[in-house]
């Protein structure tokens, strides 16, 4: 059975007809060609597929779009402001926080939600926020450093409000 979906994805409104059992991950990757969202388990266990739904991190591999009618979805492709990278993206690139980069989109979005909630998080708070996102390459050190750097930069200069 197919279902008609209407979603706002990265600030664009999309109308889709998809099988009702398709996950948000599948819809994003297969129907919208947003392959920036990755998967490590498709069982809700690794955090790799995290996207933002109305600003909150959601595991897209276990989210059903049917439940998300009319919601606002942000994927990694929607983080940059045109050609200007989000401070988190900039910091991750500069500090080597993405090694293979496979976990990176999910971690960037989780961190984005954290900074929206707490613009000056402690290292421990960052650890807690990212505890559901596994990374096998970095040992997390550079990831924590990069989130701290981005928070610092975002606090220092006036940036346009993050959604």
């Amino acid at each position, binding site marked *: 059975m197919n279902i008609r979906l209407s979603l706002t994805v990265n600030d664009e409104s999309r109308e889709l007809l998809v099988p009702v059992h398709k996950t948000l991950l599948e819809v994003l990757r297969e129907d919208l060609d*947003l392959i920036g969202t990755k998967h490590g388990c498709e069982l809700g266990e690794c955090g790799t597929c995290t996207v933002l739904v109305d600003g909150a991190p959601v595991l897209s591999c276990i989210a059903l779009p049917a439940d998300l009618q009319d919601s606002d979805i942000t994927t990694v492709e929607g983080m940059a402001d045109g050609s200007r990278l989000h401070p988190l993206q900039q910091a991750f690139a500069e500090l080597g926080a993405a090694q293979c980069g*496979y976990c990176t989109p999910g971690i960037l979005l989780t961190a984005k939600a954290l900074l929206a909630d707490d613009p000056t998080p402690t290292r421990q708070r960052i650890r807690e926020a990212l505890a559901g996102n596994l990374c096998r390459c970095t040992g997390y050190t550079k990831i924590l450093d990069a989130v701290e750097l981005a928070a610092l930069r975002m606090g220092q200069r006036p940036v346009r409000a993050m959604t």
Partner: protein
Amino acid sequence: MSKRFTVVGQPLPKIDAWGKVTGDTRFADDMVLPRMAFGKLLRSPHAHARVRAIDTARAKTVPGVYAVITGADLPRVKFGILPVSQDEEALCTEKVRMVGDAVAAVAAVDEETADRACRLIDVDYEPLPALMSIQESLAHPEVRIHEYGDGPNVHKNVALQFGDVEAAFAASDLVREDVFFYEGNTHLPMEQHAAVAHATADGKLTLWSSTQTPHYVHRLLARILDMPAAHIRVIAAPVGGGFGGKLDPFAHEIAACRLSQLIGRPVKIACTREEVFYIHRGRHPVLMWIKTGFTKAGDITGCHLKTWLDGGAYGSYGVASTFYTGVINPVTYKMPVYKFEGARIFTNKPPCGPKRGHGTPQPRFALEVQLDKAAEQLGLDPADMRRRILVEPFTKTANHLTVTTIGLGECIDKVVEASGWRDKVSRYRAAAEVDAPKPLWQPRRRRGVGIACSSYMTGAGTAIYWNSMPHSGVVLRADRSGGVTVLCGATDIGQGSDSILAYLVAEVLGLDPKDVHVHPADTSLTPVDLGSYSSRVTLMCGQAAIQAAERLRSAIFKAVAAKLDVDAGALAMRERKVGVPDDWEKAVDFARAVELGEAMHGVLAFAGSYAPPKRAGKYKGGGVGPSPCYSYTACVVELSVDEDTGEVELHDVWIGHDIGRALNPLLVEGQVEGSVYMGIGEAVMEAQVFRKHVHKAPSMLEYKSPTTLETPEIHTMLVETDDPEGPFGAKEAGQGPLLPVMPAIANAIYHAVGVRVDEIPITPEKVLKGLELKRQGKAARVGPDRVPLFTFKQPLVVESAFGAPAEAIAVRPFSDTPS
């Protein structure tokens, strides 16, 4: 430091970082081609069974199914990554040897349909007894997993002896014998393996795959599919984490190729996470017996090591793994005589293979914990004891390996200093001795520190198949635009090898790394690099890239010299210009210099080649272990142990690593931190274990790995030794720093609570068991106490080369500057 370098040593972003933070990077499963079909493998539910018949008729009738194949649709060849272990089939025809062995494959319009069709394939199995441990496999020689090997269910049996260990033990003040066990664990890359194959109407075939070894896959595909290698093209997609798990040719790659050939469409097969757990090729479970002699002062007099590896169902890299459990230990400390016996046993479990540190973390754990025990008995500080007995630079080891530079002393000094070792060693010990009563509701936690050291190869000295060609090649092409393109078969698995190539070329040519385009591994375009394993890429591809860049540079110098009417020897390249340093005003732009070069020489394309110095010991087995140079690491761990729950909480890890030279300190730190993290996972939680023939934890939730909360602060300190073998002096960083972590943790736990857990992983249950033994006044040790009844081969007796001087710079094939 001197201004010798402009790019080298800078903490630059990786050249592919931008694609990775924006979602642009296309991993294998992100590939979509027009008309692409989706494939699925049917895998065996039996650990050991004869395949009587496979009936695909029902599956073929499912609407949307394009093809169903079995082993009968493939040429009858067995393959394996090592020439000595050709024991695998992509789709098993006669027998399955583990749960997860593939027997059939389907291509369909989508994954769901392929999955449904798989369930309709009828396989008639005749179950055979399954052997699930070393003990079972040795106890049942009548059940044969394979028909080849060094005995019933014995894949490999090796014994090497360098000097008279018995005499050394007799002359020792202390001789210790200990038994250790190291459980298997798996790589768990975040990206599941995926491959897309496209057979085209011209009879050619292209495979995109998440592989660390496109060259070996290319070679083997030609054999497996029985078609000319020249008609096959293998392209390495960016790899979402490898750690050794993507080093073999796999069933899903081969099935995708064959299906594509049959249906004339591209075929993608993406493995599920559960399949990745069964594909495995990870850390071998190893049981070890180690006997070492010491003098009162703490010198090692000799060492005898026996290892039993649980190999799983296939050979994979196992012969090399077996050697690696023995050959690297003598590279760290002075060990005048050495004996090693090792055996790899087949079992009906997923095959083990190379995981980060390949075969060496297990014996490293044994040696470093034993040293800690010996230091205590001898009344020596474990850091000082190690510091005293380090191998001398530019000497040979007992087993004929050549050590060049060694910065381990400085690494130890750094971690001892930074961690506050001297103070903590005595303070925590004293605290542990007073048993201060605490109210019951307060956790009883005790702190401890532990130290361990290690060494690792910077690239294997010999290739997997015997040949005298380069191990790495680079073709460098200069463009009239002023950019240069690097073609190299190396695969970037996240370690940053593409970036390293760009940095090195930019350094030699005075460019910005951004001016350098690095083309990913593609067997039709890029010269061969053997693959991303054994920490070889930075050194080998790096040297090849430097050679190619130097050749390009001299061609350009010649042309610019003619133009400026100066001596070519007076020219320099920097800031995207070529000129005489004292007369920089007249320097010409690099782009202009390329034009001058092209006008003089024609197209500017130069090759660089690298092969390691030929230093293999002249004995059978001497080919495993030699490396151009070895990296060294020292590690101090601080942790606390909860005496009520047995839980271990890690607080800090200080790690000193001899990197030779940090080509990019940021990337080196990243490799060190990632290694430490992975070592922590192995030390306290990760385990690839089986119950009733199936994996006990085949999911990311059940297979515990460290999150941000379990990973402590990691303090990395780099030591530069400027090794003559490395590109601008660099050694490896991707594997060595993992090695000392597990023993340092075990030693710190002992320091905290006086419990020896001689077994990895050190789970809370094991710690609690040790505490309970201690309370009962028994020896507070948890670990194996018996070794299998097993007869090793008569050892090959070779004279010890210990202490013999090494050539400062070895003669290297293809080198421009023979010494």
